[in-house]
């Protein structure tokens, strides 16, 4: 049974205030996933304090520190049931996990961080994994550009 909206509102806002688009319906998820070009980060948010309490700040940190994915969105497990079920449909071989974080490149899953890889870790640790994944998923030219020394 979903928690009170009053309780989850700050948990939603922790991500939306960082520019993460919230997907509330299956149609929202389909629209987000139908655009395949580039990189897309999908965060499965959750009420669970044990892991989501680190996942949300980890995502926020990563979005400010790393090369930002082209599109970033979230569904809320246990709250927006239809949207979450549809999002999981795009990860058919992966057991349901919330919170969890999926990174897609050109429509292909390139990184998945399940709940048990978030539990017991700090937001900085989670952000570190994400920044690494963001960097690895960048087009080669962009990665080379940022690695090149500044012209004198």
């Amino acid at each position, binding site marked *: 049974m979903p928690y009170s909206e009053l309780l989850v509102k700050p948990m939603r806002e922790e991500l939306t205030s960082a520019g993460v688009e919230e997907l509330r319906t299956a149609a929202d998820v389909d629209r987000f996933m139908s655009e395949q070009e580039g990189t897309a980060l999908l965060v499965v948010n959750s009420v669970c304090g044990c892991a989501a309490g680190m996942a949300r700040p980890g995502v926020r940190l990563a979005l400010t520190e790393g090369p930002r994915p082209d599109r970033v969105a979230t569904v809320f497990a246990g709250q927006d049931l239809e949207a979450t079920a549809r999002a999981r449909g795009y990860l058919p071989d992966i057991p349901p996990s919330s919170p969890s974080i999926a990174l897609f490149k050109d429509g292909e899953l390139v990184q998945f961080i*399940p709940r*048990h890889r978030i539990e*017991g870790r700090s937001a900085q640790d989670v952000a570190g994994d994400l920044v690494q994944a963001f960097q690895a998923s960048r087009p080669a030219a962009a990665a080379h550009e940022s690695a090149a020394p500044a012209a004198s």
Partner: protein
Amino acid sequence: MGTFHQGKHALHGITVVVDTVGPEVAVGRCDDIDEAQVILHDADVHRAGDGGPSKEEWVARAAGYGVWPKHRRLVLPRESVASIRPLGEI
């Protein structure tokens, strides 16, 4: 943002591997542990042998993306439990 586990074991909410003294090993989200039992939520159990994967192989696979929940609530008698450790540490 606090957690909601007043009065529960320190591993409450953590995904754990519960190895037993027998051929079974389980992975699930720990609800509670006391002197009598270990309670897991959204768990799966593997029974080693019969030509299937060993306990270690099954746990290594689970450490990748987790397990498909086959038991909404699984209760394991404490005396059958050999070890409990977070799946994230594997």
